[in-house]
């Protein structure tokens, strides 16, 4: 049971299917409605004080996963366990508490910040809701401190979101998530809008907070060097499935799944003298709409064999805390 106590969040068989309305042409042709399998039966867990990095192809289901574990949307199937309790069965009161414990930083801060409210309001409102600060002076002081921590000058406190640059808005969103002393922060591309110096500052801040308060992170990002830097463990997704997980260093030094390998080969290094990134996957991008049976990488994979199109490879332990879903390792 010690392991269960150390696990902050775990999901089992988590699934989200969307039904597409379909275009009029296919409706006229009498085709049946189609199912988009955004997240298709994934398992993972995050231990207290740990950072799990989540990477994968654009559209593979990362943000959907983030929205499922914060219950912004309800899963089609599967279990979500937060601190040993069934999140999907939470009462309204317990859910309100959970909304403080688990904070989500959205991918596009443009749509998540209310344009009619000042930064002071945006950052102090969550503190009010959760009873963390009472007097105006107390709130103002906390907001000023938050602004400084995320590298925004205090002179910004009375401005509106549209008066900020993209990266400044993202830092406001990060400050808002940190404003209620959360336990788990889910960052959906929290640093990709930032220049590398401010990004370094924010990544250091995340690490300091983790050390100080034992924060736990689920960190979604496309920048693999950022993921490697911040994560203890990494999960790689491809079209609704987790295809590989393992400790960050091992996974990056010796990727096992063909998709993970392809990802690492495509990273452009910040040095014009280094070779240009390579595209090692062939063919069309794989579709999550009524995907064929078998492995989702079929048709693009350099290691594909006959079995791949027939049997879906399960995620299996390969030792050293690593798991991979591939028939031909």
């Amino acid at each position, binding site marked *: 049971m010690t392991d269960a106590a150390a696990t902050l969040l775990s999901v089992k068989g988590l699934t989200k299917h969307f039904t597409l309305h379909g275009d009029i042409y296919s409706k006229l042709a009498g085709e049946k409605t189609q199912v988009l399998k955004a997240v298709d039966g994934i398992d993972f867990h995050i231990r207290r004080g740990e950072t799990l990095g989540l990477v994968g*192809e654009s559209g593979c289901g990362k943000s959907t996963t983030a929205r499922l574990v914060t219950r912004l949307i309800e899963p089609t199937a599967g279990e979500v366990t937060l601190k040993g309790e069934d999140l999907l069965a939470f009462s309204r009161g317990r859910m309100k508490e959970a909304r403080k414990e688990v904070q989500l930083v959205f991918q596009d801060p443009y749509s998540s910040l209310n344009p009619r409210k000042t930064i002071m309001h945006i950052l102090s409102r969550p503190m009010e809701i959760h009873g963390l600060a009472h007097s105006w002076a107390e709130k103002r002081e906390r907001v000023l401190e938050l602004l400084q921590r995320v590298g925004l000058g205090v002179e910004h406190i009375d401005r509106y979101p549209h008066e900020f640059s993209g990266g400044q808005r993202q830092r406001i969103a990060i400050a808002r998530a940190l404003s209620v002393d959360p336990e788990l922060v889910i960052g959906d591309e929290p640093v990709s*809008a930032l220049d590398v110096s*401010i990004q370094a500052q924010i990544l250091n801040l995340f690490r300091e907070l983790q050390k100080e308060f034992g924060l736990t992170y689920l960190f979604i990002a*496309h920048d693999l060097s950022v993921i490697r830097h911040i994560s203890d463990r990494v999960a790689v997704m491809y079209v609704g499935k987790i295809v590989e997980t393992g400790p960050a260093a091992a996974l990056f030094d010796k990727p096992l799944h063909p998709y993970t390998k392809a990802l690492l080969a495509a990273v452009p290094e910040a040095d*014009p003298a280094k070779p240009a990134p390579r*595209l090692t996957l062939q063919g069309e991008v794989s579709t999550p709409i009524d995907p064929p049976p078998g492995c989702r990488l079929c048709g693009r994979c350099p290691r594909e064999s006959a079995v791949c199109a027939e049997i879906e490879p399960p995620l299996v332990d390969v030792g050293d805390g690593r798991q991979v879903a591939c028939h031909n390792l």
Partner: protein
Amino acid sequence: MAETVPRPVLELDGLTVRFRLRRGDLTAVDGVSFAIERGQTFGLVGESGSGKSVTAKAIMRLIPDPPGEIPSGRVLFEGSNILDKSDAEMRALRGRRIAMVFQEPMSALNPVFTVCDQISDALRTNLGLSKAEARERVVELLSLVGIPSPQKRLDSYVHEFSGGMRQRVMLAMALSCNPGFLIADEPTTALDVTIQATILELITSMIERLGMSLLFITHNLGVVAHACDRVGVMYASHIVELGDKREIFANPQHPYTVGLLNSIPRLDGHAKYLTPIAGSVCNMMEPPSGCKFHPRCAHAMEVCRREIPRLKEIAPGHLAACHLHDRGTA
């Protein structure tokens, strides 16, 4: 290099953009000058909030007025000043000849229109395609930007697309009318590296095929290293360094550029803490005197507090704005 000097497609000459806010004026872009040649990719990098997107919006004439204004400077597009054009002339230019990919997709996409309607709108007004023709072309464009099963996603709304898919819808929209000049503001930040590589290949092919020129704004220095020809570095409303990509990476001359390059996390290394540039970001409402970088610069001298350093040529085509290069004057 020995050919006749080609006239740049786009030339910024002392562009200045100011916002008049309740609490005072904010100069977001201050005397910015650079030129982009035909078929060239110009990378604009720099601190978050330094004025990159405002520069791009000024070129497109999309600075909201009020509170924004352009007190001085010229934006020469194919030789004529965009800032003098009428709204009708601008409408004819936008989309067809200059297109832009915006940094935040949701600020530019309409939530109540389907993906197909948004992209085909430009195709129908600019290229006069019929509804069915436009629809066909949209499928083609979506598949070019790597959207799986495009024909099944045409009638989706943008909120049903992932972040990176929205970004690609915007890119498809911008590329739809084969613009001669593309401004791409962080066009690949929401994309994984394999789709990013696909998109960069697509853009490169358009540069080669159509002689398109590109203003590429990005924080991803890896992308700059491989996709750009020349690079401009911005800090607090100024261009502080300008040069050939190889020069900027191998031989950076401005202390801010050096700090930026040192902040990049490495794919192989695993340092516990990264090394950001010391000090806090510049207060744009009350910027420091002289060189705006001086409160954070390890090399700051007396003169840096007094005088704004001008961009000076250090080597052919390589310019930096830093008093360290005022040889013999200090």
